[in-house]
């Protein structure tokens, strides 16, 4: 087992510990567990950074070329974005929702083959890191929007039905959750847009064409339109609250399909095998 894989495994372990502690905080209401979870998650994130750097050095390319690397990178961006939101809003509950998501990605990532393969020289350009970093950051921000959306719907349901579970006392106010939805949208949408544009530019330099309507591109566009509709609705017609939360959830599902479903179900030039030198 290489040092890199070992670091990855330790990171996974730290995320798992953090997840358990976050859940203990929210379910058993031990505030100390949540504080500990935050520090462990931060430690895991730092180690994760180191993992990605060593991977970059070992492989010689930005480590998002196979499923293992992509999942790991996605989890890294989610944790990073969560930590940023957490610094601003101090929300243990958000951690209790986001952390398991990142952990799930890491678990799948650990099951995927981890071998480093030669990269197709045609694709090896500096547009590659730009494209994937932007795309993944966008994905991570929208993941937080999804998490906030789920929390919003739970909270709204309880306020409407007037039946309060223990979670009610831990969830933040609707206003804050809706603000997170909006913030995520206003950061995530430009990131996603730039991700798509940089991808097109990269495609042009690699294959001599900006857009080929391969399934990944098509789905990315569908997702982009969905978020564009939400942003428009928010800014002009006053969409907010429940509707915005539902949109964020649907958007995330599309995103997940664009990210994983297309790669796993529909093979094309975005599939990981296409990344390898043949």
């Amino acid at each position, binding site marked *: 087992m290489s040092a890199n894989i070992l670091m990855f495994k330790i990171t996974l372990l730290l995320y798992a510990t953090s997840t358990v502690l976050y859940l203990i905080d929210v379910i058993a*209401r031990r505030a100390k567990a949540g504080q500990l979870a935050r520090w462990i998650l931060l430690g895991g994130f730092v180690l994760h950074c180191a993992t990605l750097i060593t991977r970059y050095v070992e492989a010689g390319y930005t480590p998002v070329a196979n499923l293992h690397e992509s999942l790991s990178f996605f989890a890294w961006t989610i944790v990073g974005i969560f930590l940023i939101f957490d610094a601003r809003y101090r929300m243990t509950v958000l951690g209790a929702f986001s952390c398991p998501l990142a952990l799930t990605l890491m678990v799948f990532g650990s099951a995927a083959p981890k071998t480093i393969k030669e990269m197709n020289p045609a694709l090896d350009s500096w547009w590659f890191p730009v494209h994937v970093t932007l795309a993944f950051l966008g994905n991570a921000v929208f993941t937080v929007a999804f998490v906030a959306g789920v929390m919003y719907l739970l909270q709204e349901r309880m*306020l409407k039905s007037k039946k309060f579970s223990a979670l009610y*006392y831990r*969830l*933040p*106010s609707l206003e804050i959750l809706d603000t997170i939805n909006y913030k995520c949208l206003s950061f995530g949408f430009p990131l996603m847009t730039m991700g798509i544009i940089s991808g097109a530019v990269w495609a042009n330099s690699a294959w001599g064409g900006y857009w080929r309507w391969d399934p990944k591109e098509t789905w990315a566009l569908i997702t982009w339109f969905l978020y564009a509709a939400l942003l428009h609705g928010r800014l002009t017609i006053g969409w907010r609250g429940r509707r915005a939360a539902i949109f964020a959830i649907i958007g995330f599902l599309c995103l997940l399909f664009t990210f994983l479903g297309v790669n796993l179900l529909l093979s094309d030039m975005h599939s990981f095998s296409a990344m390898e030198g043949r």
Partner: protein
Amino acid sequence: MNIIVVGLSHKTAPVEIRERVAFSPTAMDKPLHEMTALPAISEGVIVSTCNRVELYATSRDVDAAVGQLKRFLSTYHGILKRFLSTYHGIPLEQLESHLYEYQGEEAIRHVFRVSASLDSMVIGEPQILGQIKTAYGYATEFKSVGLILNRFLHKAFSVAKRVRTETDIASNAVSVSFAAVELARKIFGTLDNKKVLLIGAGEMCELAARHFLNNGAASVMVTNRTYERAEKLAEEFQGQAIPFEEFPQKLHQVDIVLTSTGAPNFILGHDKVEEVIRQRKNKPMFFIDIAVPRDIDPKVNKIDNIYLYDVDDLQGVVQANLKERHKEAKKAEAIIDQEIGQFFRWLGSLDVVPTIVGLRKKLEGIRQGELQKTFANLKDLDKKERKAIEALTAAIINKVLHQPTTVLKQSQNDASGDRYVDAVRTLFNLETEATEE
């Protein structure tokens, strides 16, 4: 020395009994004086609130003390105001079944629980701690407390504080009007810049409006079928009065609506509110309908971004919050368990015999240490000389210890004993398992 609690509370006695043994807060010197004058009692505190009357005392003879305290409680008022004895004072046989008594660890637990508001009618209500502090204040003022109760009550206050900060026992509202404020916070996050509309008048409604203002709401608009009443209320809240016919046009400007009119039918229907929320671009609104019969069509709650609560809903919230408090109370009990152990060990250390033994041990330890140092330096001493030095040092210790030991033993039987013991322990830094802050 033992800590004893004798008393009754809302859990064991109805108000008809409690009022007959209650003490007036304006004249505590006499009962405190009489209580500590009881032969078996050395220190005493009297806590008398509308929900409980309790005597805290220390004594060396628990059985005698409990009997005397019970008699004191039953006869004090009877003796004092014999002419009013139909109202005050109560025969012991009748009182007995309502009384509880605790000693030692159980007494400590009881007082910790009472001060932490775990024994209150509404768990977590904050008044009881203040009442015990006042009772303790009288006791210090009239010098009825000494070393043990002083430290005991201070400990109880710090335990109560710990419970308050480390658990959520008091964090959720248990009154309808506060529950409304908390709900608003769950919806709006903060109440800053939120506008409140008060439709109609009513005690609960006005109270809620006041809570909203105290918690940051920007302004209050008031409307009433009688415009003069609206004006009067508006003046009270430094708000704006509007004629009753005009309030539907103002609805879109406000975030929180409180209604309590005597109207027989709904004054706000589904369609009107839907129109208002469109006008507000879906900015959420919180309607609180305290009127019976209700003022607002319950279907309004189905509209997105509208939250409608009636009286029963708010009661439900209060019930849910109370359940939460009971859950938190379990955490509080664990904190109390910890603290009892600590305090009880300190109390045990106040016994005279272990103190004398500890003091001897301490000095003997010093003597042995110094002897070894000296012998190590003076290697050419012969056996006889060594013996002489050992005897000399032992004699010094015995002489020094003679007087303190005698005083400690003598003081065992009077109230000053604990003070001597504590002083000796502090001066000679004798091991006490209880680490006090």
